[in-house]
């Protein structure tokens, strides 16, 4: 696993300080930088959990047709053109004409032209070879298929039954609402006297029972507020729907795939056969383009272009343009191997530093800070201590206070020290820095070697500066009996030049750094040999 740095958005809790990184709720408060927005008005990070979302347009992900919002509702958020999903594999279906009955050459021709063919058209899945003729869905014309299918949907038993239920309840509701004041008082629970409530409830409860046993011709007004509901006669009774055949079908099942998966039938509210061979194609659900606003100041943070084909944004205030990007890496494996050549037998298996975080080891890492701003910034880093024992510098183990020790200690440049990161500039402005890179590598390697030697501070600090990137070295010292993963919260604050030329402004945010999982010790010699 590569080490990650996630950024905090404090929207989930009232506390601006994030929870400890090992708490389960921590993972919901940190996000990758590219998912975050930045509200200039509030000067705050916003995440997908706290922005308010508005729909700026609907489109079909398959045909990229922009659906006018007026028809979205009638089409039930699904594409009303020719886009269908295979019920078995969710692939997009294509419209295929039937084979011409007589001539072979005819088929070749129609195949080339695509839409011209014999009248019964059907839908065909190119992936799993499902075709809609199996379920008796064929079309006269190759276009406007959704409209042709719509007829089936409108006459679906569930919607018909639903309308009937509505008609069944409406007169009853009207009757019970139009007569009598008791209901009016019920609508104000806060002001009702409990005794009255109870009494009226007791009274009201008895009335329908009385009515029940003295069936009288319909005179709703006389019957009091809670008239008895007349018997509902279902359009289709469940008793007619062959559940026993389902039992027999499942009993004799040969292949699991003969039964439709739950996810293929759970949106259907009507009793349907279980067989997967009875599944019907469904229209492709629409997607929406979303405008996101800051939920506190209502300013737009992101606004896509209207056209479905366009992937650009009219407004785009993403956090990546404001906060320094951070990426963390362990020095490349050959360097690590060089460094630890003498003491480590298993070095060949270690492809990267991250896969080999052995308990009891000391590992340097590099934190690259990238400045997106056009002005230079100064960054200060502060790792939130697990438990800060200052004496825990010597990696020699076996000390009595083992239990008190934190599982690992992270060493970063001192919180007071400011790390300068140069301003972002367009690529062509960096030409002069070209030769800098070559020299840097050597320097880096040397410094690694010295840093690995165990002395504090050698590998820690700025180890590389180029363009708008500054690489900072850090080190993690893992306790001998440590377990779990190395995750720590890090407070990052940076100062940038503001509009006011005299004072710089500062912005502070939290991150969580996940370096990977500690490999528990299995009797290996201490890696950090002095």
């Amino acid at each position: 696993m590569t080490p990650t740095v996630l950024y905090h958005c404090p929207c989930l809790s009232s506390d601006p300080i994030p929870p400890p990184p090992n708490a389960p709720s921590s993972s919901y408060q940190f996000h990758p930088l590219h998912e975050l927005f930045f509200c200039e008005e509030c000067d705050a990070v916003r995440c997908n959990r706290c922005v308010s979302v508005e729909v700026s347009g609907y489109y079909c992900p398959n045909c990229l047709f922009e659906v006018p919002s007026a028809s979205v509702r009638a089409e039930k958020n699904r594409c009303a053109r020719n886009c269908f999903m295979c019920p078995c594999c969710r692939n997009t279906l294509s419209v295929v004409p039937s084979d011409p009955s007589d001539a072979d050459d005819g088929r070749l021709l129609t195949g080339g032209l695509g839409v011209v063919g014999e009248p019964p058209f059907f839908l065909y899945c190119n992936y799993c070879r499902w075709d809609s003729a199996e379920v008796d869905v064929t079309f006269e014309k190759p276009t406007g298929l959704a409209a042709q299918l719509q007829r089936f949907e409108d006459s679906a038993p569930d919607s018909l039954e639903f309308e009937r239920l509505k008609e069944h309840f409406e007169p009853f509701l009207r009757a019970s609402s139009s007569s009598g004041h008791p209901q009016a008082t019920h609508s104000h629970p806060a002001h009702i006297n409990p005794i009255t409530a109870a009494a009226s409830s007791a009274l009201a409860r008895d009335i329908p029972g009385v009515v029940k046993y003295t069936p009288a011709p319909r005179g709703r007004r006389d019957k009091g507020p809670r008239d008895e509901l007349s018997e509902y006669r279902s359009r289709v009774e469940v008793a007619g729907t062959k559940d026993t055949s389902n039992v027999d079908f499942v009993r004799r099942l040969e292949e699991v795939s003969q039964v439709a998966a739950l996810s293929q039938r759970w949106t259907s509210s009507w009793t349907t056969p279980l067989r997967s061979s009875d599944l019907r194609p469904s229209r492709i659900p629409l997607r929406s383009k979303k405008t996101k606003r800051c939920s506190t100041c209502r300013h737009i943070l992101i606004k896509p272009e209207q056209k479905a084909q366009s992937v650009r944004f009219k407004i785009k205030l993403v956090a990546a343009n404001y906060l320094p990007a951070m990426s963390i890496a362990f020095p490349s494996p050959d360097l690590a191997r060089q460094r630890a050549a003498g003491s480590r037998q298993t070095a060949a298996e270690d492809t990267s530093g991250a896969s080999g975080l052995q308990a009891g080891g000391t590992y340097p890492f590099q934190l690259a800070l990238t400045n997106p701003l056009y002005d230079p910034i100064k960054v200060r880093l502060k790792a939130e201590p697990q438990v800060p024992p200052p004496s825990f510098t010597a990696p020699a183990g076996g000390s009595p206070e083992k239990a008190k020790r934190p599982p690992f200690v992270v060493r970063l440049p001192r919180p007071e020290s400011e790390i300068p990161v140069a301003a972002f500039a367009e690529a062509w402005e960096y030409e002069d820095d070209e030769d800098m890179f070559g020299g840097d590598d050597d320097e880096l390697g040397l410094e690694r070697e010295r840093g690995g030697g165990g002395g504090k501070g050698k590998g820690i600090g700025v180890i590389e500066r180029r363009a708008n990137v500054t690489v900072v070295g850090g080190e993690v010292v893992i306790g001998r009996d440590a377990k779990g993963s190395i995750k720590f919260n890090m407070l990052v604050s940076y100062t940038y030049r503001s509009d006011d030329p005299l004072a710089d402004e500062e912005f502070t945010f939290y991150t969580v750094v996940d370096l990977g999982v500690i490999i528990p010790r299995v009797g290996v010699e201490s890696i950090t040999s002095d």
Partner: protein
Amino acid sequence: MSALAGGPSTPRSRTSFAPATPAGVANVPRSVHSGTVQASPHYQTSRRHSLYGTEDRIVIDPGSRIWKVGFSGEGRPRDVFAVHPLWCLQRSPDPIQRDEDDRVLAARVQAHLRAAFHDSLLTEPKSRKVIIIEHPLLPVYVKDIFAKTLFENLQVPSISFASSHLLALLSVGRITGLVLDCGELESTALPIFSSRPLFHQLRTTPLAGARLTSHLRALLLLFGTFVPPPTSLSAAVNMPTSSCSTRVPLEVLSDAVLEEIKTRCSFVGESLDGALGPGIVSPSDEDPMDLDLPPSDTAPSESEFSRVSADRDSNAGPTSSDFSVVSQAQILPGRSSRDEHQLQALANLYMRHSTATNLHLKVTPPASQQAGTGQGTLIIPGWIRERGSELLFEGGDVDEGSIAETILDCLLKIPVDLRKTLASSILVTGGTAMLPGFIPRLHVELIRAIVTSPSSSPRPPIAPGRPRPPPYDRYAVLRPLVPHFAILNNPSPPPPSNARGSANAGKAPAFTPATMAWVGGSLAGALKTGGAEVPREKWDEAGGLPDSGDDAMEEDDVAGRSPANVIPDWTRTPLPVGAPPANPPPPQMREATLLAVVGA
């Protein structure tokens, strides 16, 4: 309502709901079913211009495992999705841990709600009123989390909480009935009379989907067969599968695999009434338990409630162990050799009577056997497919009655004059009830539990049939009701007897049990009714929630007064529904009720 968008709508509904006419608004029906002291929805005449009419509400049926979301006025949910189990029957006793759990729950609920609005429904929450379908035992803290997220994060204009059982009843065109919801965590029977849920007659049992899953897992571990993937392709041809088949490793039986087995392969076989006496099914160590059986038809409601909470406490333990659920919750893993023997006998019996085919399911092999080629094969014996669900019908346990017993216990608590009506209008809903054959079997079990009262079968050897005056014959008083029993949505009802009520069986529309509550919610939304509506202003006025620990405060507060009580809940009603008692309920009872709801 579809009046705005021009969908199919009857002219009548167009006129009666046109918001322009004040008369139409006055005609807006008030609460059909909300509890006596709950608010009925009140509709403003103003209508904002938006894609859907403002009166189209969002109906969300959030389960602990499966959520259904959609627009009111439609016959089916727009989207259904599974979530990682959100809550369970226990809460951590440690307050710090509990706070942390709540934070995680809030974050996950928020993610799911946002996804429901933005990805499934593609609508803006700001203009959409929301109906949340709530299980009567949905913990209050979960409701608070929903309300907090919807009001503060999504800024919906109002929320109504509507009882899932009642809505399910609406979806079959009734307002009176005994609704059994067999869901994931619990099976809950709730009688509803004239659209009033009789919450205090509610009965519940933890025998439901989650328990069935762990039971299936235990059965498969013992009796299933796993064929690891062949080590090489040539081996696949040469080796007979029997030579390499093993017991099922636990890793293979992931939740997804079990869900697949449960939803695609399992069904409920007919009752093995003759072959399988109750003595075989239930282990012998339950004799002492029967002594504890309270005479539930005469017990005062206080003790009943404390029993509900005790039930929930006691089932906290056994659920953690896989073996303990194999046959009875009392069995400890330490005694498993004897139990295994017993199970083997049970398995043999089931095997003899099962004609279901064995199934081969391709599964991902465990990490240790990844070396092979392709996927392993899990062989599911046919009898497990057929008889795994026997667990749900095995009664005799005081704390965890079978589903049939739960219904009957509920009937025992119902006032005598309602029993016949409710017994003849039983409705079965919930995802677990989707198992083919579940409902007909439940009917058989109901009758069987009454006719051969199971608790009378142990110690004193009484001739089967009709024992004379057995001391623990719990359901004797229900015996005259036998011809009246009818399950409304029984797909294969027994031939109707001459009793009037039994003609109800199978008369319900053919909505699936799992979506009934949602369909009812959609109907309630279309009819402008639904549970008590909480507008956002009210929430804002109350200043949201005190962050946590509000449970303790509610107990001394009179409902509806304190800011924490913005969210209506039946446990917060000042009086039980029904005749007013002479005195206000004693505080310990309220506490018990609350505990029962919170599941603490």
